[in-house]
């Protein structure tokens, strides 16, 4: 028995020392490369992107990498998880550059995870002002935290075989109700809400009734203690929501898939959605036109979404901060890179020079429908708003037994105030 154990011990010892040697030599190699980065392939930048953009991010970053002599490693992540993953990631595995939505800016900056960027004035001039504001955050003077690459917003898609582009709100309402009667559909306008609500897709109606979320301060920031969810003007107009509910113009039970179904099966001629749904409409062979929703009591503008790239604080620890900033605030801001990064996702590029090179009728129509739009609030307090604002719409448009809009939205405003104060 003793001999056996000795034998076993010997084998284990050999295996351990082999493994240890392999591990140590690889660890040493990594230490060495940190000490003398002049060695081949010393500098690597890690970029996190989503699957849709992968091919074009690869193309853009490898062109940049070749001219600069930097290796770029593009890692695919689920878009929605990039923001949260950044909070808990170990420094060694963290990215230097991430793709992100502008409404993450406040949270990422408040967490101290992204670095402020200072692109040259000549570069900034090529972007619409709101797109840069969308990526700016700071209570005491805003800083820019990302370079916008693409713009998106929702609009009204009209099936021109069934209806004509509405001249005004009344026209839209009467056409929608007539078609609803004819097709026996449950709603006149397909706009998605679902059980949790969808304040984003309802925003054109919200702004059309003179609602706003946060007051804009003099310095262009947002004031989280002034909530306009139930402002006087909006409450005065809110009886219209009750009317829409009783006539079945909109319904909270419509979620994204039912909305698509209603429009593609021609049960309704009106669909409030974004450029991501243009392909299915084209494939279904439906003739369509894209317009802004007509003004109701105020202008019915959509939320503006801007997506772009940011430099993380981990780039400093990795010793690639200046290279990462060069990639993002210099190279990715150029028109050529902007065109490929935006079109990859069938969106309009943020850079205006690049915008002139895009000839896609649907994309430019969405661009026109964005006029006067409001960038989605990018301050972290917005987390307290989505749920309540969405559920106020759900409560007041759920059909029979719905809560009066005046009550639903006043309650939402009250809850939002408590939640923001309580956080």
């Amino acid at each position, binding site marked *: 028995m003793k001999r056996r154990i000795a034998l076993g011990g010997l084998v284990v010892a050999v295996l351990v020392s082999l493994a*240890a040697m392999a591990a140590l030599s690889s660890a040493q190699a990594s230490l060495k490369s940190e000490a003398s980065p002049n060695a081949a392939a010393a500098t690597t930048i890690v970029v996190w992107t989503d699957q849709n953009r992968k091919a074009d991010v690869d193309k853009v970053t490898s062109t940049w990498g070749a001219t600069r002599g930097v290796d770029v490693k593009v890692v695919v992540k689920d878009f929605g998880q990039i923001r949260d993953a950044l909070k808990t990631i170990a420094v060694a595995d963290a990215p230097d550059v991430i793709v992100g939505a502008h409404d993450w800016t406040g949270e990422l900056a408040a967490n101290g995870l992204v670095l402020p960027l200072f692109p040259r004035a000549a570069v900034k001039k090529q972007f619409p002002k709101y797109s840069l504001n969308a990526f700016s955050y700071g209570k005491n003077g805003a800083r820019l935290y990302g370079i916008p690459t693409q713009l998106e917003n929702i609009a009204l898609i009209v099936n021109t075989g069934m209806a004509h582009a509405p001249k005004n709100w009344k026209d839209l309402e009467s056409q929608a109700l007539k078609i609803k009667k004819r097709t026996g559909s449950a709603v006149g306008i397909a706009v998605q809400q679902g059980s949790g609500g969808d304040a984003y897709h309802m925003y054109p109606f919200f702004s059309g009734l003179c609602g706003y979320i946060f007051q804009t301060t003099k310095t262009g920031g947002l004031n989280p203690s002034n909530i306009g969810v139930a402002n006087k003007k909006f409450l005065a107009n809110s009886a219209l929501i009750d009317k829409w509910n009783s006539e079945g113009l909109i319904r909270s039970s419509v979620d994204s898939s039912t909305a698509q179904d209603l429009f593609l099966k021609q049960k309704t001629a009106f669909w409030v959605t974004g450029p991501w749904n243009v392909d299915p409409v084209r494939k279904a062979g439906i003739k369509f036109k894209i317009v802004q929703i007509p003004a109701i009591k105020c202008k019915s503008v959509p939320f503006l979404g801007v997506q772009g790239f940011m430099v993380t604080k981990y780039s400093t620890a990795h010793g690639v901060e200046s290279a990462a900033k060069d990639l993002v605030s210099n190279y990715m801001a150029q028109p050529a890179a902007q065109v490929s990064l935006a079109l990859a996702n069938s969106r309009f590029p943020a850079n205006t020079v690049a915008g002139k090179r895009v000839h896609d009728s649907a994309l430019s129509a969405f661009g026109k429908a964005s006029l006067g739009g409001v960038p989605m609030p990018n301050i972290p307090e917005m987390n307290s708003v989505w749920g309540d604002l969405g559920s106020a719409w759900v409560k007041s448009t759920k059909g029979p037994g719905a809560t009066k809009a005046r009550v639903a939205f006043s309650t939402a405003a009250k809850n939002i105030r408590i939640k923001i104060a309580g956080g």
Partner: protein
Amino acid sequence: MSSAAVPAKDPQRASAATSALSAPTRIVAAFSGTRGLLVKILLLGAANALAAWAAAVLADRGRWPALVGLVLATLAIDAIYLGSRTVPAKFLVPGTIFLVAFQVAPILYTVNVAFTNYSTGHILSKAEAIQGIESHSLQPPDNGQTYSMAPARDASGSLVLVLVADNGDTFVGTKKGLKPVPRDTVGVAGGAITSAKGYKLIKGPALFSLDKELNAFTVPTKGSAAIRPEGLDTAVDLEPSLRYDARRDVFVRTVGAHTVYRDDGRGRFASPTGDELEPGWVTGVGTKNFSAIVNNPLVRDPFLRVFAWTVAFATLTVLLSFAVGLFLAIALDKSGMPLQRVYRSILVVPYAIPGGLALLVWAGLLNDDFGVVNHILHVHVPWLFGSAWWARTSIILVSTWLTFPYFFLVSMGALQSIPSELTEAARVDGGGRWQVFRRVTLPLLLVVVAPLLIASFAFNFNNFNNIYLLTAGGPAAGDQSLAGATDILISYTYKLSFATGKGGAYGLASAVSILIFFIVATISAVSFWRTKALENVR
């Protein structure tokens, strides 16, 4: 279902089983020969190799206490498996390791987080936060310039910046300041600096190795403003709007009123008026998260309603699924029934479909206006959105649909374990079918099933998926609070943590989770204690 819980029905087989070696003994036997030794050495070698690799990584990252722990644990494991007097430990160690890794560690982590302010704006360490505030406070001064920039070495080899202003003026920036140089000494092509007389431009990989030096390099201009490199070929004149005073541990605003921001003990620097600097850092806040549960009206007001519904949901789901599962098991228990296996297989289908998928399908089927269920039945029942009571009913029905196959399987097995002599004797004594079931079958069944009922209750008590994917907690309850009519404690915790304040309130969420743990543990402990009484039936 474990075979040990259900003794063999056939007495002959049972005696055969006792005469054969028990399963653990056989496993031990299999590992005692030369072959067993070889397997043991290979497994142990693999474990040691893994440990050695982990040790190298830990050493690389300088995690010394963890490294010591790892080495000690590995040595202990080797000693246990190479020794001959440690047989019980050999069986206990793997389970213990998994227990520590997947139960104890997360619990300790949760408890730890519950006493901190870990949330949006408070995820860094204090040192990192100070660095963050400093870098976020940089701003262009009035008439601040941006420059084309190229890092270079002067004759003595020190780092300088060759700069071209937007108006074409050329400079060389050193640590001392900006020095104008004649325009014709700097070569510019396509916006990039290509040469500078008397200086050697740094290019290629050498440039990247400079990263830290370059980012720390500043060319002072006016006051506290300085030109800083931004990327590889741009430099910007920036001044900090806040200055950190390490001695007093405060930040002072350098422009306008000289506001002082102090560490207010809540993981942030804040001015006397409550204006805070971002980012903040993680710090211990004592029992603040727990007192928030009591004091915060968002948590306190709907608590009893949510708690009552949580208990009702968990209880009704378990009881209904058990009732349906048991009924079907009894119904299909008849021997010689044609197609018995087919029926049994079909009944297990809900169990085989991934829960998340089944829930989303049900959410679609039950949609108030567009769902197939209303469409086929030609009714307009507000299953999910319209009415609180219907939504609660739907949730319980769908949860039952998802859970009954489990109890069907369990009951099927447990029924086999009840000796037929007992039921037959009861029948001979004149008991009716129902009486026999009530007085003999059910009590005997409960001995086996009761712990599973309790476990299922605890699981459903925290069944986030069922609620979130079906109704997301909606519709709104009568009191119009943040908690919807179908929110259970855990889904409400989720809403509280991720949809209040700035979001991401992990500290508060952990505190509520601990509270929920105590509630579930208490209910389970009481139930287990009560079921001990059942065992006396035997």
